[in-house]
């Protein structure tokens, strides 16, 4: 009993949960800054920079604006952070086969949490600029959630043939498949990748908070440890979201050495794709983003659903 609790705690707090995800996330966010710097003829920050940034913020004073709703203002970052923490732990554990049926739905919910927390926190801060940011974030969530769910529907249809009825909603079962190797799966993967880009708040979807207009809308009023929690949350999302794509679309991470290396390769592939999109696109406007996600991505996914169903019916795995 005690050992079981200890093991679970270890999984959540040390490996592969909090500490490990954090480490990977901080390195990933360094990668993002470094690549951008190289494009601009600069050297860029050293590899430990994101970690030091966060450590420093932890030691700083927390200022709460006078007009802010204190409780919500303080709790919001923690909510978002715990959402990502749970999500990443769950995803890593997929590798060691400990999970429950239907967890893909839980994962989807957990993925919305950071955005919701951001909206809550910035609306609570009482600053007009943060409010503009919150409104934009809200519209953005509305635009990309639907295509994201549809993308998973494609995957579930796609894998329906090979799995037991109950297993279709389980990440472990899904991670054994690589639906990206088919047309419909590839379409779904591309759309999901763009949704992840938006969730990470990267160009071209960094509409709510962007590094170039550093006034950074939603987070403008946060300082000290609370800001650090946001930064940590963003770093961990940089791990959790690509990992989710790896698990669902690319066949997951194996426990063997080869599987592990392959998994790391797949993760890096997704991250590099994200960085490339970030560095080669100008920012879009919020209504453009909505139109893009609803019409173009939605249309592509409807086609993917049809293709996947047809493929199942006729037994054509490549469709």
């Amino acid at each position: 009993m005690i050992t079981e609790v200890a093991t679970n705690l270890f999984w959540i707090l040390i490996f592969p949960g909090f500490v490990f995800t954090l480490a990977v996330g901080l390195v990933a966010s360094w990668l993002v800054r470094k690549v951008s710097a190289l494009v601009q003829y600069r050297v860029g920050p050293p590899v430990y920079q994101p970690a030091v940034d966060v450590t420093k913020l932890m030691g700083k004073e927390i200022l709460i604006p006078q007009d802010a709703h204190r409780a919500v203002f303080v709790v919001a970052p923690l909510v978002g952070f715990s959402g990502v923490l749970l999500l990443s732990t769950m995803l890593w554990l997929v590798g060691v086969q400990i999970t429950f049926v239907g967890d893909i739905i839980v994962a989807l919910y957990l993925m919305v949490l950071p955005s919701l927390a951001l909206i809550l926190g910035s609306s609570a801060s009482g600053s007009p600029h943060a409010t503009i940011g919150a409104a934009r974030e809200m519209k953005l969530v509305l635009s990309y959630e639907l295509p994201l769910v549809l993308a998973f529907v494609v995957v579930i249809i796609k894998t329906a043939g090979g799995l037991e009825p109950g297993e279709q909603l389980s990440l472990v079962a899904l991670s054994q498949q690589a639906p990206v190797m088919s047309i419909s799966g590839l379409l779904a993967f591309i759309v999901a990748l763009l949704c992840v880009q938006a969730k990470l708040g990267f160009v071209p979807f960094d509409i709510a908070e962007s590094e170039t207009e550093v006034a950074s809308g939603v987070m403008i009023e946060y300082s000290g440890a609370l800001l650090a929690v946001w930064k940590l949350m963003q770093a961990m999302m940089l791990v959790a979201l690509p990992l989710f794509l790896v698990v669902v679309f690319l066949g997951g991470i194996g426990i063997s050495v080869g599987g592990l290396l392959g998994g790391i390769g797949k993760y890096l592939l997704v991250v590099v794709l994200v960085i490339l999109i970030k560095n080669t696109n100008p920012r879009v406007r919020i209504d453009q983003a909505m139109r893009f996600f609803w019409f173009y991505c939605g249309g592509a996914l409807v086609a993917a659903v049809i293709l996947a169903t047809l493929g199942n019916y006729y037994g054509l795995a490549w469709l």
Partner: protein
Amino acid sequence: MSETVRKSVLAVGPFHPLQEEMEFFQLTVDGETVTDINVRLSYNHRGIEKLSETLQFDQIPFLVSRICGICSASHPLAYVQAVEEIAQVEVPERALYVRTIINELERIHSHLLWVGLAGHFIGYDTVFMWAWKYREPVLDLLEEITGNRNNYGNVKVGGCREDVPDELKPKILAELDVIEQKTEMLTKAVLDDPVLHARLKGVGILKKDDAVKFAVTGPTARGSGVDIDVRHDDTYAAYGALDWKVISQPEGDVFAKAVVRLLETFESIKMVREALRKLPKGPVAAEVKEIPPGEGCGHAEAPRGETFHYVRSDGGNRPVRHKVRAPSYVNVPSFKASCIGEHIADVTLTLAAVDPCYSCTERVAVVDGRRQVVHNYASLLQLSREKTARLRKEIGAPEMKLEDL
């Protein structure tokens, strides 16, 4: 400005990494269209004109070069020309050439700086980084000649303090070649880019008669088809002996102003080359014994327009009145003509096109009827960039490739 506006502006701080002077622009909008604009100065008022009355004629160039960091060659030049007019000093010819070289180098780096910032305003941050990278060698040259990257303090009544050493000539010429090549790339990128055409043309038009009414100068006027240039009209230093032409564009929009600045950079490079070649031998300063009573006007063409100094002397060793007019002082009020009726996405860009010493635009707050801040600098910048992105899409422009630059 009402107290509410003030407060929200303070609370959120209209500050930005690229912020410069503290002017506060207050825009009134109707929907998305600007209907009125009001400016509050004073944040940067240091009382230079009064201070100047307490300093000696020879000390004042150091004071006036600190009026504006980017125009720190043209302000002292305008001042000493006013004093030389009172004292009837014959300035040695070599000094005139040295003044020309310093002023044109200043113009090159100032225009490159503007190109970078304009890139930043429309969302091409890479252009910003690159233009500033190419600007660095000019500052290094100025440092080698005068001893400082900015605030050269190189002119004095009767001549110059530092000479351009002859052994530095080859280095300056070599650097100029590199700068010319890079500027050519930037210019090509601007003039050929369909997105920039769509984004900048027809935006923030300052009509020719408005330009005259608001008495604008420099590239702002020349972009509106008013081809005035002090260097040409009331020629000073060595400009009369050099071969160059005044660049002007009739359209009056942001694009025209960008074109004027870019083409002027080439003229400046050409002028520095020619001035170096013709640089005569001789002393760089004449002796000035005393400043007799009298009054004088001096003006010089700064990168942003005409710098005007009026000096009155009563025969003592300090002026009794020294009036300074920087180019932005007449260029900035022209926003009243160019911004009203514009979409707010274009406001930052229109303000930036004047190069108002250069980022006062970051003091912008947009208010609606209830006097609440609805946009700040960041969101305006955002709108500006979104418009670029939208136009890119409409035109179907290819991604901007790094190697294009």
